[in-house]
């Protein structure tokens, strides 16, 4: 193979204070299938967005076929022959498959005014047939199952006559038959000299399909290897060798003798998670590891009553909760700090003190009106305890940095003095100092007897803070490791789907339809 078709040189990108990519360079040859691997948050998605033109890099440049690619332009990337198929390939839910494929590149009849609907329909049908798909093309895409929507997105890319196809976890919603059809297409394209960047957590797919693999970790490129020269174990090691960064480990203590505060028995939500059972003792931090989409957040949200569950039981301090009842969960002493703190946690335009006391407004009331004095007293105490850096208690929440917003959110729930704390990615996107402070807080709370469920994709953090680690994959618990024996490699080996994977198979075949 000749000169590299795609050259990425020295790309860096920061979001706020967090470096998503640091000086990443890689090249993809014409006709090569190049796999991109890395843990959650390693920077794969950011790199893809930069290539697709929907995100502007801070430094570095991209060359396609020898030409410099103008950064930050979807149209320029498209014109250069780059087609990106995003993970949630929803596209236009109200439009049918034909229109979804052709929007922006419509076929017109002679004269250029009218759409050539007939030709569009025929070409769409032909493209989808190449992908092994046949269905009613008039159905709105929003009514199609996810796998079909994905196929529609791929058909759109094929139409574009792309030279570089970028697939972001394309098979996470596909059955094995559909996956094989997709692989066939990728190989056909390869024979025609089309390159593919393939992002996947399924390592067996990487080994089956890819020529070379590049591993990203913490926004940096770790290595590019030929697939023939690397083993699965080595690949996992490259992915997880994440900088531990001096997170002080909690002394792990056996939970014996302390009461069970949270007990989950066979919790099932059809198509999302299945037969999840575990328990958390008072003063214990149970870590929950898994890839994005493994169902960790869904379990936490079900416990808190955001979503209902279909089967199983949730016991808080021995008392059963009813499904889908947030108020009951709150009364029982459960608090959830959600992953998406801006959307789900904070009222951004309102002040720091209001945000801190919102959850316990009732208890601050006198004669039905909130007492401003009590609010201020409590808020200033929490701000001091948590070390929230804010200009004043009256400052709006949006004026705070990500790390301080996170502390605010923690404070909001701590004001309730909960018994069980569910933390969903509490340090995602916060700077190093705030991260350390959040860790400190988790330690303190555990020492005070809080039962904590910690969901995190940051493995060093999880290993340092947890007494035990449970690993989820495809909606199921696939393993439990004592904090003292857990390593990044062990956790990742469990979290990444294996070749003969019972969990994945069960989910794809049995649950939803």
């Amino acid at each position, binding site marked *: 193979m000749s000169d590299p078709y795609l050259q990425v040189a020295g790309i860096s990108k920061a979001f706020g204070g967090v470096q998503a990519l640091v000086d990443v360079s890689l090249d993809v040859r014409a006709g090569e299938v190049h796999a991109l691997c890395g843990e959650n948050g390693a920077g794969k998605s950011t790199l893809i967005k930069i290539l697709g033109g929907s995100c502007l890099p801070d430094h570095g440049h991209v060359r396609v076929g020898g030409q410099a690619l103008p950064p930050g332009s*979807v*149209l320029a990337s498209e014109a250069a022959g780059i087609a*990106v198929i995003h993970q949630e390939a*929803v596209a*236009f839910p*109200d439009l049918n498959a034909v229109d979804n494929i052709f929007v*922006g590149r419509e076929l017109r009849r002679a004269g250029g005014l009218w759409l050539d609907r007939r030709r569009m329909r025929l070409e769409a049908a032909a493209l989808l047939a190449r992908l092994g798909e046949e269905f009613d093309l008039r159905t709105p895409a929003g*009514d199609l199952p996810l796998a079909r929507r994905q196929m529609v997105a791929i058909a759109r890319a094929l139409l574009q006559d792309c030279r570089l196809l970028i697939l972001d976890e394309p098979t996470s919603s596909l059955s094995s038959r559909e996956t094989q059809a997709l692989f066939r297409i990728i190989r056909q394209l390869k024979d025609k000299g089309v390159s593919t960047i393939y992002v996947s957590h399924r390592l067996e797919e990487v080994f089956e399909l890819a020529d070379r693999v590049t591993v990203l970790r913490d926004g940096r490129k770790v290595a590019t290897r030929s697939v023939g020269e690397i083993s699965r174990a080595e690949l996992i090691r490259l992915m997880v060798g994440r900088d531990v960064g001096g997170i002080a480990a909690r002394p792990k203590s056996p939970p014996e003798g302390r009461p069970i505060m949270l007990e989950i028995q066979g919790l099932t939500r059809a198509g999302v998670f299945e037969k999840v059972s575990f328990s958390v003792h008072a003063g214990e931090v149970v870590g929950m590891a898994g890839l994005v989409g493994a169902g960790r957040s869904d379990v936490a949200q079900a416990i808190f009553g955001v979503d209902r569950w279909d089967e199983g039981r949730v016991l808080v301090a021995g008392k059963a909760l009813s499904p889908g009842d947030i108020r009951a969960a709150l009364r029982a002493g459960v608090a959830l700090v959600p992953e998406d703190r801006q959307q789900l946690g904070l009222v951004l335009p309102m002040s720091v003190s209001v945000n801190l006391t919102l959850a316990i407004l009732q208890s601050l009331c006198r004669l039905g009106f909130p007492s401003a004095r009590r609010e201020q007293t409590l808020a200033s105490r929490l701000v001091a305890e948590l070390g929230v850096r804010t200009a004043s208690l009256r400052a709006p929440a949006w004026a705070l940095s990500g790390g301080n917003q996170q502390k605010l959110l923690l404070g909001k729930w701590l004001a309730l003095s909960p018994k069980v704390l569910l933390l969903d990615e509490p340090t995602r996107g916060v700077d190093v100092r705030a991260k350390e402070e959040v860790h400190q807080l988790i330690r303190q709370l555990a020492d005070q007897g809080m039962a904590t469920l910690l969901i995190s994709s940051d493995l060093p953090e999880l290993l340092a803070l947890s007494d035990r680690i449970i690993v989820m994959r495809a909606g199921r618990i696939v393993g439990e490791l004592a904090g003292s024996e857990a390593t990044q490699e062990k956790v990742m080996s469990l979290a990444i789907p294996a070749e003969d994977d019972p969990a994945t198979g069960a989910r794809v075949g049995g649950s*939803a*339809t």
Partner: protein
Amino acid sequence: MISQEAARTGGTDRPFKAALTRLAQRREYGVGFLLAATLIAVSWKNPAFASAANLSDLLVQCAPAVIVGCGLTFVIVTGEIDISVGSLLGLLAAVMGLACSPQRANWPVVPTVLATLLAGTASGFLTGALVTFGRAPSIIITLGMLTALRGLTELLMGGEWITDLPAGLRTLGTGSLLGIPISVLVAAVVVVGSALLAGRTALGLQIYAVGSNPEAARLAGLSIRRLRLFAFTLTGLLTAVAALVSVPQLSVIESGVGKGFELLVVTCVVVGGTSIRGGSGGILGTVLAVLLLGIVRTVLVFLKLGEMATYWERAIQGGFVLAAVLADHLARRSSAARAAGGQT
């Protein structure tokens, strides 16, 4: 386990709900059925209702809402809204009157028509520009326009009335061609043109795409701003067209022309099945809904309720809107459930 068929129709265990859902998804059918049923029932009770003269009157009455409704359908499909069309109609009535009245500017018919069209288009463009570049919700921006345009109209009219429109201009409102009123012909042309734009052109397809998923539209290289700007500008132009064929029917032009018209048009578009969230709906539904609400109004007159007719009209209109929103909600929910249920 749900069978394929059940998954497609939304569950066999609740046939009534499934039927409702199907109806909700193709609102044209539901509205068309209601329209036909009302028409037949009333004509059977009172044959005078179905007379050619009465039906022609009905169509003439409906023409302005049909014309503006076509433009507003595009605006709502893009995910925006324009509640300033009533005030714009008032302003354009004033512009027409001031331009062609012998006691004012005394312009000939053609320059008057051109000035009206230009003013309407310019106003629509301005509204669109404010919405797309102002980064504020269109309901707020156009609420501002609603007040501002009415104020401008009052300023222009200075509290006076215009009664002496020249005969040439009157023809636009009251004349007919081959026995069909000009306003109805114009409305028919607008409807056909809009339907072709929506269904047969790339521009139309892109307008639906923007409303369905703005982010995906951006990733597909569409210019969201330009498409929304187009929809608002078109609505301004069509409001001018509606003014040209309806205002000359009035014996008096005063500063209150078109008050409440915006609510009627928004009601018709929503009842006609265009989702207020954008991305779906169509011209046919809007036209049928205008006719349905028009018939309801006429029927109420035929019932000789007197003063009460107006009150009933409002109540019935409101009921239709609530029913439409509910149907929209049902359709969305079952659609989401189906997509999730089919997910493997």
